C-alpha cells in the first residue's frame, strides 16, 4: 500500500501537524521507504492464539496511585493561566469565531 500526498495531509491533520507543501514530496517518499520494509511482516503466518495461557489470571495493579505533590503551581509553567484555568484561543468553529478568534477563553 503506497502512501499518497492526500494520506499525508490527512494524517498530518489528525496529528495536529502543519506540513508545508514543499515538504510533502519528501515526507511521502520517506514514509513509503519505511513502510516498504514493513511489508516483510505480511510473510509471517497468522499468530497461533495458543500459548498465551500464561497471561490467564495475571494480577492487575490498580491504575491509579497516591496523589503527587507539586513543588510549583501550574500557573508557574502554564503558557497562559487565569483564575485556576489554562487559557486557550477560542475554537474557530464557534459562532462568533471570526470576531473573537484572537480572544482567549478558559478551557
Amino acid at each position: 500500500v503506497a502512501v499518497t500526498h492526500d494520506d499525508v495531509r490527512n494524517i498530518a491533520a489528525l496529528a495536529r501537524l502543519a506540513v508545508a507543501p514543499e515538504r510533502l514530496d519528501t515526507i511521502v517518499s520517506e514514509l513509503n521507504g519505511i513502510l516498504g520494509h514493513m511489508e516483510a511482516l505480511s510473510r509471517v503466518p497468522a499468530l497461533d492464539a495458543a500459548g498465551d495461557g500464561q497471561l490467564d489470571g495475571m494480577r492487575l495493579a490498580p491504575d491509579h496511585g497516591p496523589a503527587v505533590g507539586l513543588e510549583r503551581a501550574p500557573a508557574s509553567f502554564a503558557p497562559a493561566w487565569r483564575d485556576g484555568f489554562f487559557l486557550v484561543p477560542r475554537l474557530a468553529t464557534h459562532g462568533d469565531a471570526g470576531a473573537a478568534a484572537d480572544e482567549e477563553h478558559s478551557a
Partner: protein
Amino acid sequence: MSARAEVAAAFDRADKAGAGRDGLNLFISADRAAALAAAEAAPATGLLANTPVVLKDNIATTTLTTSCGSRILEGYVSPYDATVTRRIRAEGGVVIAKSNMDEFAMGSSTEHSAYGPARNPVDRGRVPGGSSGGSGAAVAAGIVRVAYGSETGGSVRQPAAFCGVVGVKPTYGRVSRFGLVAFASSLDQVGVFGATVGDAARGLQAIAGVDPHDATTVDVPVDDYVHAATDRLDGVVIGVPREYFPTSLDAKTRARCDAALDALRAAGATLRDVSLPHTDYAIPVYYIVAPAECSSNLARFDGVRYGLRIVGDGLRAMYEATRSKGFGAEVTRRILLGTYVLSHGYYDAYYRKAQDVRTLIARDFARVFADGVHALFTPTTPGPAFELGAISDPYEMYLSDIFTVTANLAGIPGMSVPIGRVGALPVGGQILAPHFHERTMFRIGFALERAGIDGGVA
C-alpha cells in the same frame, strides 16, 4: 572525599573533557552551585553516597530543566521529581546535569537533539550512540561513574557499546517510569550506565522496585545485584543465537564476540547454539509499535498546559503551529508514521500484525529460556560507532538497533558490556536474561569484566 568534593571534581572533569556546548555537547542543563548545595544536604550513606550522577533530559527533576532534547519543552522545569530521581537522591546520589539526547528519545545517535549533536569522547568525529548518548558519553569521558538514561529500543545499550561503558536495560516493570516522559509506553524503561559492572549494579539497585505511582511496576523482590560479582560461571548455560551473528556482521566485531565467548567458556559456562527465528522481523515490528505509541503519547504537547506555545488564528491553528515549530524532523516523521499505521484501513495491516509478530518474538525467548538456557550472548551493535552525519536514511539508522530492540519488545532485561576495541573504537557484547533475572546478567557481566576481555583489540 566528601559529596561536595566529589561533585566539584566531577564538574572539573567535565570542564577538562570539554563537555560543554562547543565541545562534546553532553549536557542540556547543569548547575554547579545548586549541585554543590545539594551535595551538602545529601545523605552520607546509601548505594550512591558521595556519587555525582547525570540524568537523561527526559527524567523529571525539580532542580534542572526537563526538555527531552526538544524545543517544545525548552526551559521546562518539572513540578515534581521522577520516582527514580527521588530514589537516587535518597541513596545519596547528587544530580549534577541533565544530558543531551535525541529528541523525545527518538534516535540512535544523539544527532537528533534540538540542542545540537553530542560527540563521542573516544573519537569526537563519531556519534556516542543514542538516544541516551549524553549520559553514556559522560561516563565514558570519566565525568561520572553512574548515569541514567532510558531505553525504548536500545537507547542505553547501544550508546554504552559505542562509548565503551556498561549499559543496563532492566526488565519491563522492574523500575518505575513515573516521571519518565513517555515515548512508547509498552517499551520504555529507565536504564543505567556504569563505568564498571559494579557501578551499573549499584545504579540499578538504587532505583529498582515497585512503585505505587506506576501501575506497570511489578512487586517481585529485588535481587542483590551489587554482590553478584564472580569470576566463575560453572553450571551457567549461555545461548548463542545464530540470528545475531549474520554474515553481514562486522568481522572485527565478530572477532571480539568470539573472544568474549571463549572467556565465558573458560569461566565455566556452557555455550549452546540456539535460534530465535523471528529476529529478522524485530525492526519492522518495533518501527510500527513505537511510532504508534509515540503518536498517542506526544499528543499532549499542544501548547495548552506547558512548554512552547505559538499563537495562531484559533485553537487548531495554535495546536498546529506549536507542534510544527516545536518538534524536529525525526519526531514529526514518527508521529506521522504512527498516526498512519493506527488509522482506519491500515490498523490491521500494520499495527495488529506488528503486535502479533511481537508476541512471536517474545515466545522465541520464552522457548529458549524454558529449554534450560540461563542467558544469551550477542553483539550489542552490528559494528562500532559511526561518523557524525554518516547515516541520513531513516531506516538505515533504525537498523543500528537491530540487536537491541528484541529485548524491549519481549520485556526482558539486557546489558551491554565492553568487550574490547575494533581499532580505537569500543564494541559491546550483549547479555540477555529472562524476566527479572538481572542478577544472572550481572554475574555474567562481572565474569567478563574480571576476565579482562575489554583489553583486547581486533
